[in-house]
């Protein structure tokens, strides 16, 4: 059986410059994989490419999600199929109320899947329920999306969305960066709550910290646009101890 996510010899260019130079990676359902790497190794390029952002051109190889080639799908079509990308820098959108946004997004996904849309009351109830677990104040939901939120609040909002959309494949792009220990635990709890035999997660991070709370099944080291080493959870600890340089050179 094929894995939930199969990345095969993926080459990606941005503005004509090749950033990813042949990534092969397989994430089966039920597993959490971490992709670690130094700055400039191509981590964010990988996450944007998986989410389908314009300007990230797949020049070779392919991405299979549930056995289907994603390359031609728009970002919204991918989201509707159960992919979720938590961004490193969630965008502030003044003028769009958070709750309105959540309802619009949830219903757009449901509509695309041929499911019945939820009315405002149902969405509100659902959001409140998830927000409570993430210690997100009701007041925050009434504010414009991410506008004036602290770094920690923005990341919690990403996790709230993940909890609400219940994706099959969640990609967390440096969601742990800039978080204090309490916020980090909340993020980890959010990730752990979604762990299930049907779901998979790709945790992209620079540091090992988050991985102490969300122990990955596999760890991959990304450097220079390639995966140079893969291993178990121990590899993250090793990286933390000896640094990327040593591991990358040894590979």
């Amino acid at each position: 059986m094929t894995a939930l996510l199969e990345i095969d010899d993926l080459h990606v260019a941005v503005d004509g410059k090749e950033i990813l130079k042949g990534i092969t990676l397989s994430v089966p359902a039920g597993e959490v994989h971490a992709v670690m790497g130094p700055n400039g190794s191509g981590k964010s390029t990988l996450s944007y490419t998986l989410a389908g952002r314009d300007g990230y051109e797949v020049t070779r190889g392919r991405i299979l999600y549930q056995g289907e080639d994603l390359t031609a799908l728009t970002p919204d079509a991918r989201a509707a199929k159960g992919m979720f990308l938590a961004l490193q820098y969630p965008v502030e959108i003044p003028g769009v109320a958070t709750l309105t946004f959540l309802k619009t997004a949830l219903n757009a996904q449901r509509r695309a899947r041929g499911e019945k849309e939820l009315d405002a009351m149902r969405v509100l109830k659902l959001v409140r329920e998830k927000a409570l677990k993430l210690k997100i104040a009701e007041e925050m939901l009434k504010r414009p999306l991410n506008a004036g939120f602290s770094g920690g609040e923005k990341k919690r909002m990403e996790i709230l969305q993940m909890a609400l959309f219940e994706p099959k494949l969640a990609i967390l792009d440096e969601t742990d960066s800039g978080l204090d220990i309490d916020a980090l635990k909340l993020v980890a709890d959010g990730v752990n709550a979604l762990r299930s035999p049907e779901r998979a997660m790709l945790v992209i991070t620079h540091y090992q910290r988050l991985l102490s709370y969300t122990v990955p099944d596999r760890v991959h080291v990304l450097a220079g646009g390639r995966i140079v080493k893969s291993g178990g959870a121990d590899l993250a600890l090793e990286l933390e101890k000896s640094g990327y340089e040593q591991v990358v050179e040894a590979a």
Partner: protein
Amino acid sequence: MTALAFKVDSAPDVFRDDFARHAASLPGAHLAWLATRRKSAFAAFAKTGTPTRRVEAWKYTDLANALEGELPPAPRHDGPVPEHGVFGEEGARVLLVNGFVHSVHDGYGLEIVDLSRIDAATPDWVSGHLGLMAAGEDQLLGAVSLALMRSGVGIRVRGTHRLHLDFVNLARASMSHARVLIVVERGASLRLLESHLGDSDAAFANLGIELVLEQGAQVEHIRVQSEAAETLHVSSLAASMGRDARYRALYCAVGGKLSRLDAVVRLAETGSEAQLHNVAILKSGIADITTVVDHVAAHTTSRQLFKSVVGGRGRSVSQGRVVVRPGAVKSDSHQLFKALLLSPRAEADAKPELEIFADDVACGHGTAIGDLDPDALFYLRARGIPEAEAKSLLIHAFLADAIEGFGDDALRQALIERLDAALASLGQAEP
């Protein structure tokens, strides 16, 4: 003389001709006070003539070039009117067709005067105000609208009122020169709902509006200009503000080939406040808002926020001059002009200006012109929102703070429906 340098030397001026031929037969021609004001208004206009781009205040909008051929006066229309008004039923209503009062629904105790029938019996509050503002060199087309006034309405407000001014333009290849005078008496409060609709074809609607806010008067003015695609529309609005008077306006321009709102707000007395918001949505032609906010007295406040959404080959113009006179200490003024360009051929011109002659004032201005934020667009799409819906959400978000706080829920809903229709047609123009 420098004035001569601006003199229009091209084809015969359409307004000059009209005035020469018809001045003696215009409404109230026999009233000395009005004849004098018309004459001096025309003289103010004639120094410059129909503005071309050589006139600084009109440098982005070439009216002379847009006004082509013979334009006879628009006729009075007494027949049925297809559609008018955008703000529901509640309140007093004056319907004006081709600038002429067509019908009045009052019953709320407003005093309403039909200016096309102005005569010796006209009340003092009309003769005491009409044509004293929006008729000078600083509002050239306002001067024309008074000099050539054939129609319009005068309204005196006491107490608290909601008033619809429904303009419908059904004229073909013609021009109308109308005036509106609204006197809001001491402590009175008015919600003014002004709309301009119609299916006129290549007609020119020229309107002069005078708003007199006496001490403590409050006016909330919501205006939608949504005429047919070939219509030319210029409104020259002047407001004078008494002590502690408050004027809040939301102007929306979503139609026509050329629309211009030329607004002069005079913060004449201490404690007066003006808030001017403008929303322009267009995919062709020009939507121009040009304002002068004049801080004459101390402790006066002005806020201006202009937002344009421009697609296709549309062009938005935002010009704002804030003047702080020597006595206007502790004045507080801010203006912000923002434009969203949705197509490569869309254009926005923004020119904020400040002239400060007083110390101890707070004045600020800013402009921003750009396209939709690609990061925001990707963010919304990555959450499952399809591209068209995501764009629409971002455009609404862009306009939100200009609309916020105006009207009540029902009025805002009616307004948003109008704006949505304009935004939807914008989408169709996209390649």
